[in-house]
């Protein structure tokens, strides 16, 4: 009896959902002349709250530029931002809100761990996702038709890290991650590459629990393997603390962080001097891209501050989305996805865009930054 009731409830629920779905599409057609909404779920609070506003500004800039040129097929674009707090539960709620708001394309996603559970939400609603910043390989491993990545993957980041380490010559490398999807992905791939002959050796592969203040136990654990280079693949809050505490424990070797740690706060938390000479694997930021000067000055003029990490990727995501919508001639998700697959040579910051069959960038565009005078500066473009 109970089973029957459950079945009935499910049946009614699924009917309601499918009805809603049709309702959605129906009204979309009716609203053909209204503005097209682009959705964005990004962290505006929580552990990565610093990044959200950069991404929002970058996206807004693209939206304004496209609208100034008359929009997409005579329809204006509108950006709708929801906070995912870098937290899986909040992110799913934010994605559902965006789906309910009838967005045409999603251009959000910073924390991979929070972005992963939103994939099915958007995919079920047949909304294409152009993910600008999250870059765990797991995002594209499910081969969802509507999911595209315009950031380098964890795989490509690990390769970049490995290239730099082979080039700059450390002998024993310790790899540290924080057990989140993004961070673990890069760490495991880097560790696997270190295990192969040629290049530096692996000292240890270890993880810390994010959200704590005292990592002295972890640090003692890493230092007993005597590394002369450390690669931290997590985010900047723990990165700053680790850096400071490693230096306090009189570790003098090299230190490199992943792109999740590239933020001015990393240097502040580490306390200035401790961060000097720290390397980072990073997709290109506006200030490391040649010829982005005009873009930077118009960004400054608009928002009154320097463009931060992932503002360019977010800007590009909106432009790619607009391109897809224009080519598809409407907001039908399947048609947009098909057009995105066909994109060839569309100019974005990392070069001409053509998606691989896995919906990722052919070239991750990773570069090596170094902290100099309290700021991240370009060290090597790995070309």
């Amino acid at each position, binding site marked *: 009896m109970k089973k029957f009731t459950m079945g009935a409830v499910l049946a009614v629920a699924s009917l309601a959902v499918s009805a809603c779905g049709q309702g959605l599409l129906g009204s979309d057609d009716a609203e053909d002349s209204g503005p097209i909404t682009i959705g964005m779920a990004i962290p*505006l609070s929580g552990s990565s709250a610093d990044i959200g506003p950069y991404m929002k500004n970058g996206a807004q800039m693209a939206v304004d530029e496209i609208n100034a040129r008359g929009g997409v097929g005579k329809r204006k674009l509108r950006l709708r931002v929801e906070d995912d707090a870098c937290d899986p539960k909040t992110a799913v709620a934010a994605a559902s809100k965006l789906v309910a708001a009838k967005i045409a394309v999603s251009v959000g996603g910073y924390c991979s761990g929070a972005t992963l559970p939103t994939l099915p939400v958007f995919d079920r609603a047949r909304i294409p996702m152009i993910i600008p910043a999250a870059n765990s390989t797991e995002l594209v491993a499910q081969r969802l038709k509507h999911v595209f990545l315009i950031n380098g993957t964890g795989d490509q980041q690990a390769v970049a890290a490995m290239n730099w380490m082979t080039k700059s010559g450390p002998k024993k490398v310790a790899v540290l991650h924080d057990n989140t999807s993004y961070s673990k992905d890069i760490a495991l791939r880097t560790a696997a590459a270190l295990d192969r002959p040629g290049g530096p050796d692996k000292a240890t592969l270890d993880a810390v629990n994010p959200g704590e203040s*005292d990592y002295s*136990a972890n640090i*003692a654990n890493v230092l007993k393997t005597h590394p002369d280079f450390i690669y931290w693949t997590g985010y900047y*809050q723990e990165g700053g*603390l680790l850096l400071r505490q490693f230096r306090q424990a009189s570790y003098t070797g090299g230190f490199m962080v992943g792109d999740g740690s590239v933020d001015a*706060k990393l240097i502040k938390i580490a306390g200035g001097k401790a961060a000097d000479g720290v390397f980072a694997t990073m997709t290109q930021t506006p200030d490391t891209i040649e010829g982005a000067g005009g873009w930077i000055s118009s960004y400054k003029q608009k928002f009154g501050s320097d463009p931060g990490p992932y503002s360019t990727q977010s800007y590009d995501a909106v432009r790619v989305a607009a391109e897809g919508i224009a080519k598809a001639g409407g907001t039908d998700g399947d048609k947009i996805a098909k057009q995105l697959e066909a994109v060839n040579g569309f100019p974005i910051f990392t070069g001409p865009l053509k998606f691989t069959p896995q919906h990722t960038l052919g070239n991750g565009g990773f570069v090596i930054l170094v902290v100099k005078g309290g700021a991240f500066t370009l060290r090597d473009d790995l070309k």
Partner: protein
Amino acid sequence: MAQLIWNGLFVGSFYALVALGYSMVYGIIKLLNFAHGDLYMLGAFTGFAMLGAMGGLVHSSSLVALLVVLVLTMVTTGIAGLAVERVAYRPLRGMPRLSLLITAVGASFALEYGTRIAAGPNPRVYPVRLDGASFTVLGARVTVQQLLLMAVSVVLMAGLTMLIGRTRQGRAMRAIALDPKACLLMGINVDAVIARTFFIGSAMAGAAGVMAGGYYGKIDFLMGFIIGLKAFTAAVIGGIGNVPGTMLGAIVLGMLESFGTHWVGGQWRDVFAFGFLILFLTVRPTGLLGERVTERV
């Protein structure tokens, strides 16, 4: 080895400062004050705001400034603790234990998200950082700021032990822990003593918050959660409600984390610590120094 012990001692003394407030409140009114970790967070933010307000003064004499701020913050968080007790706990005293537990969780969230509204969701970096030379003792690296912080902890804990063991105030607290009704009949102002307990416990948590800010440098509005959990664990290991037991429990927990990480790897640190808690509860549920509680009928 010496390094592991030193790390454990240092982290343990931090846990002890926070755990004492937990333990005192539990000892007296049998309430698990879940908002306690958030008073630690509040202390860190109060100190941050005060240092910010002092501005240029800070850089010329940072250590003095930090100590002044420490005392002021203890008063402020103490008052905040009083407010929490007055608003969230006193009206429910005498109600089933469960409603107190839930109101404690509510108070915790109120403090966390209240701070988020006031100070923003982003992590903040302390304007004053303790920096100092380091030297080697028996093979362990010890820094001057670690010694300083431990000295402050020891002074605070010694003061508390004196207060509870030697003064009229402390006697009243111990009496209420034994039997609040009888105390009321004997003319002790039970409400006032409980309020004072909250003040002292919260002030200690606030002090730990400022010290964490000055030492680690990074503060955020959720920082109280994990340390609250660890302090609770420390209190249970040592014997919740028992002051020397709590300090011992905190040191044991610090050591467990330090050695656990060494033996089984970094990501197992919390698994090890909390796994030990479960093991401990099954073997000796009253904690290391806790007394066997006979149910009064």
